[in-house]
């Protein structure tokens, strides 16, 4: 209803639209979903991984320490190749869902996520954390995220189970109360170097890896090519 803050719901929707535009260009799978009553919406993405880094061989993959290969790529192979290289059973495939919603209480985006086996059994937070731990560790070691790293580690411990505000199903959530804290230096810095950023891109590139969600670098480049600012 009210938008006297920097990051109101309309601003959120604008950044999401820009983000999704780029996602569509590179086939990254993000899409926008409206609530049934059409009063608001959210971004979502689903991907599949094989439990515990059973690597599926796939032509064209560099495979540098990539312990979690997307299953969809494997599934695109002709069935003969697939049977030869695939060793994981169907029960080992995990479906991850990521939803980005807007919190009007904190006036920031919030990341909701859940994971389940293909037969519908949900993963617990402990299971998920074990799964993403490898990917995250690698990412942490790579990052230039010195000051932010500590905050991420704290932030990561704040995740727990909540009800999805639109779907009403249980999802894990990265609690939004600290978002402003770690986003403020990012925003200040972008103002200093006079470069417009997409809030969603920056935010998701920080919190995503904590739960197994990585953003290709092209998102950042796409933002700096955007003309004009949010009105």
């Amino acid at each position: 209803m009210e938008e006297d803050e920097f990051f109101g719901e309309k601003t959120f929707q604008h950044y999401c639209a820009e983000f999704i535009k780029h996602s569509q260009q590179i086939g990254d799978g993000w899409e926008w979903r409206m609530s049934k009553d059409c009063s608001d919406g959210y971004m979502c993405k689903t991907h599949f991984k094989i439990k515990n880094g059973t690597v599926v061989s796939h032509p064209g993959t560099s495979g540098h320490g990539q312990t979690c290969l997307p299953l969809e790529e494997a599934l695109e192979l002709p069935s003969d190749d697939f049977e030869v290289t695939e060793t994981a059973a169907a029960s080992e495939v995990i479906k991850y869902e990521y939803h980005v919603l807007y919190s009007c209480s904190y006036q920031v985006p919030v990341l909701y996520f859940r994971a389940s086996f293909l037969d519908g059994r949900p993963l617990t937070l402990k299971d998920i954390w074990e799964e993403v731990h490898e990917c995250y560790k690698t990412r942490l070691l790579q990052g230039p995220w010195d000051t932010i790293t500590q905050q991420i580690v704290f932030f990561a411990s704040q995740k727990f189970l909540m009800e999805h505000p639109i779907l009403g199903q249980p999802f894990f959530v990265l609690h939004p109360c600290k978002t402003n804290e770690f986003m403020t230096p990012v925003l200040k810095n972008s103002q200093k170097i006079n470069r417009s950023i997409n809030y969603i891109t920056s935010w998701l590139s920080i919190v995503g890896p904590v739960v197994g969600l990585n953003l290709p670098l092209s998102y950042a480049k796409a933002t700096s090519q955007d003309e004009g600012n949010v009105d």
Partner: protein
Amino acid sequence: MHYPIGLLFDLLASSSALPWNITVHFKSFPEKDLLHCPSKDVIEAHFMSCMKEADALKHKSQVINEMQKKDHKQLWMGLQNDRFDQFWAINRKLMEYPAEENGFRYIPFRIYQTTTERPFIQKLFRPVAADGQLHTLGDLLKEVCPSAIAPEDGEKKNQVMIHGIEPMLETPLQWLSEHLSYPDNFLHISIIPQPTD
């Protein structure tokens, strides 16, 4: 999902006589539909998360963030052990607002209806209008859930219930927030069909 028991009663069983008879299951946990609640700490974390969100709305988190860890603990322990004075000693600070204001920044509320997929409606809503008039419960409903209230001459189709009673729609929202909130500092409002009797 960790809803207050009074809210569950209003929403799902308000026509039942008290005491409310419920069935507790100890076998056949529906693994596909529900996630296990691993410990009591999770309930505490959820409760504190609601408190923090309520204060984010009321005071931009300033009051709750100024409190010490032991104050947060006292809120939870007071609730857990049914010690109202212990709870209220801290919670009353969350019910204050600056002298120059007429109320909180925004009112923490959630509106529940069993007929919608969305679990609840929660939006930003100020307790005081630009002209200084206090917003009422009716004002809130008109703005965020207009289907809940009947048109002027129309038949009353719904009950608007908080803590098992129907407050008058003219009640100022600020007053409701200070006096009729649940322990988590939210107004949990149920919209249920008018019983036909």
